């Protein structure tokens, strides 16, 4: 349970035991509570007072499957509030295997100086001059770092967008094949990393210093039962390996909830050209991989390797939200263009969602026509080139809207919505509006609860029950993000026995009893810390609202608007 503090001013690295006040926390729980305690809420997100936290989940690195989730937290330059963005790949497991509970990056190096933080197989950390790596895109950077330090390392890094400190900059990390294609995309955390002067974190794989389990036998037995539950679920055992999250394209489009052409419609007439089914068939025909392991310890394999017509690697992994942002949202029906844009975002170090929505806003304002894939590619390339427009685009949809004097900007607290239009799934209106993260789908995904066909009990066009559904899911997800279980392995949680198994494993690790009430309390503790930080940063209930377009413009084909009242929104966090 080591706590590494890296000061980028003094270059001092201190290693201490996890402070008692953070005991039992991991992932989002640890990063959000720490930021609320230690970062001045009104600070400049790109200044030395901000802190950047890397924290594996509480269960990362244990024998439990699908727990290689790394939470990255800081004050966000995109939202101005607290941010946690979590990512897969292999680094969370590697840090946990070194017994590292958190890396806390403090201060800032002088402007223009970059460093590599290297952590060896014994957990010893050092800062190395990063000048030779300055300006590199992530794929080239990772290759060069692997040449210098060997392939058996997980690399977490920024590209040019992070160096430019742009508000849609991501932090990329390497997948199971060592490619920097996994993104902590949201909230502009790449800009925070850039502002610290940290170009990459290189972590040795195969450490043998993981925290001990108080009751290893019970842990292993329970982890096995949990894995069996994930394997028994058709969605995680059958659908995700074959089609990935892209399976959602046709289903959400059929529900009229697929935001199209900057959310002017809920259906994209060419959705079938960019669907998961078409993607899988294309990949197979060209000799790529549909069932692909992206993260350490994964038994689902939802990832894929998209290849070009000649069978050459283009990107990994093409996922639902990216297909939406770079497809329907910009009116583009060419999967090859989507794949290229996905690769460019990973390589430049940009959030695919914020970037796609920023392109959509630019197209909606008439800057380029909807559906013009080549222009979209050229605009994203401008970010890496550092042109004036490139910097505006790289600062996200709100920056583009302001620059082009365009009002239709689908963001909440500065961060874009995801691939579920809140007018067609009212529960998502509540989550987008009230999540301390800004527009965010993983913070409280209530799509299934809104669709009767998926076992939901709510009327998706009505306000009834939506606040409660979103609140409960947000509390639950804050706890899930803290223990570090992959969202898709939550299928193992879906049964009463499944969640009991998680409580049992937490108990088996800590040696302290943990039950349903503790789970609830953990989620609440995280959300309260995040809400408190945002309040001190200047957020009020007026920030828990959607942009006007969602209340005023009926969304075809159902022609509905958001009907959740302001008063109802304000009751979400009545705790």
């Amino acid at each position: 349970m080591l706590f590494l503090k890296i000061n980028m001013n003094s270059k001092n690295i201190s290693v201490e035991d996890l402070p008692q006040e953070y005991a039992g926390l991991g992932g989002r729980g640890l990063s959000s509570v720490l930021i609320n305690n230690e970062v001045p809420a009104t600070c400049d997100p790109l200044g030395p007072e901000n802190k950047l936290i890397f924290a594996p989940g509480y269960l990362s690195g244990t024998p439990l499957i699908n727990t290689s989730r790394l939470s990255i937290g800081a004050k966000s330059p995109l939202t101005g509030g607290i941010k946690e963005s979590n990512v897969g790949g292999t680094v969370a497991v590697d840090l946990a295997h070194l017994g590292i509970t958190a890396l806390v990056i403090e201060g800032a190096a002088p402007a223009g100086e970059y460093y590599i933080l290297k952590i060896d197989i014994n957990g010893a950390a050092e800062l190395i001059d990063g000048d030779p790596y300055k300006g590199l895109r992530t794929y080239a950077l990772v290759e060069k770092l692997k040449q210098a330090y060997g392939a058996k390392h997980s690399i977490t890094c920024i590209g040019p967008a992070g160096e430019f400190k742009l508000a849609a900059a991501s932090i990329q990390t390497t997948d199971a094949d060592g490619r920097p294609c996994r993104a902590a995309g949201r909230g502009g955390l790449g800009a925070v990393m850039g502002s610290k002067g940290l170009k990459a974190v290189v972590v040795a794989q195969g450490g043998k210093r993981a925290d001990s389990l108080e009751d290893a036998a019970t842990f292993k037995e329970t982890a096995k039962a949990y894995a069996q539950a994930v394997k028994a679920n058709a969605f995680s055992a059958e659908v995700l390996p074959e089609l990935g999250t892209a399976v959602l394209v046709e289903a959400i489009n059929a529900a009229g909830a697929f935001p199209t052409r900057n959310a002017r419609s809920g259906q994209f007439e060419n959705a079938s050209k960019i669907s998961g089914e078409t993607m899988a068939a294309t990949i197979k025909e060209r000799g790529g991989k549909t069932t692909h392991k992206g993260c350490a310890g994964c038994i689902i394999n939802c990832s894929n390797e998209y290849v070009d017509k000649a069978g050459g690697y283009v990107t990994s992994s093409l996922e639902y939200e990216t297909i939406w942002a770079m497809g329907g949202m910009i009116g583009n029906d060419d999967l090859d263009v989507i794949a290229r844009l996905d690769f460019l975002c990973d390589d430049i170090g940009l959030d695919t969602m914020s970037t796609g929505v920023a392109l959509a806003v630019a197209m909606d304002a008439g800057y380029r026509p909807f559906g013009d894939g080549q222009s979209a590619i050229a605009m994203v390339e401008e970010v890496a080139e550092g042109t004036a427009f490139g910097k505006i685009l790289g600062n996200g949809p709100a920056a583009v809207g302001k620059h082009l004097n365009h009002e239709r900007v689908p963001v909440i607290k500065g961060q874009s919505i995801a691939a579920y239009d809140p007018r067609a799934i009212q529960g998502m209106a509540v989550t987008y509006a009230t999540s301390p993260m800004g527009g965010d789908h993983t913070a409280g995904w209530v799509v299934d609860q809104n669709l009767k066909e998926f076992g939901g009990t709510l009327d998706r066009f009505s306000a009834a029950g939506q606040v409660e559904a979103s609140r409960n899911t947000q509390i639950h997800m804050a706890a899930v993000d803290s223990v570090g279980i992959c969202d898709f392995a939550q299928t193992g949680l879906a049964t009463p026995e499944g969640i009991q198994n998680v409580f049992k494993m937490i108990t088996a690790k800590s040696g302290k009893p943990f039950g349903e009430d503790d789970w609830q309390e953990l989620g609440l503790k995280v959300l309260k810390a995040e809400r408190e930080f945002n309040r001190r940063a200047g957020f009020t209930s007026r920030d828990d609202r959607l942009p006007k377009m969602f209340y005023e413009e009926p969304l075809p084909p159902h022609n509905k608007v958001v009907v959740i009242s302001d008063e109802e929104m304000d009751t979400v966090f009545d705790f």
Partner: protein
Amino acid sequence: MRIQVILYGTLRNGFPDHDPTRGFEVELAGGSSVGDLIDHLEIPRSKLGLVSVGGVLVKPQAKLKNRDCVRVFQPIAGG
């Protein structure tokens, strides 16, 4: 009556004649419902998610008419 059926996700795996874009056609008795079609295709209800006809979501009891295009999805989860 002739009904065009397009299956999504892994539902199409059991139907080797399923065309990726056009699906396949089935012959059903006049007055059949969406539920009758699902039973005819022997898709277990546990694997049934959304069903749409002409781009609009429908319930299993909805009546079909000749030349309808029915799209059948499976349950989804995640985020």
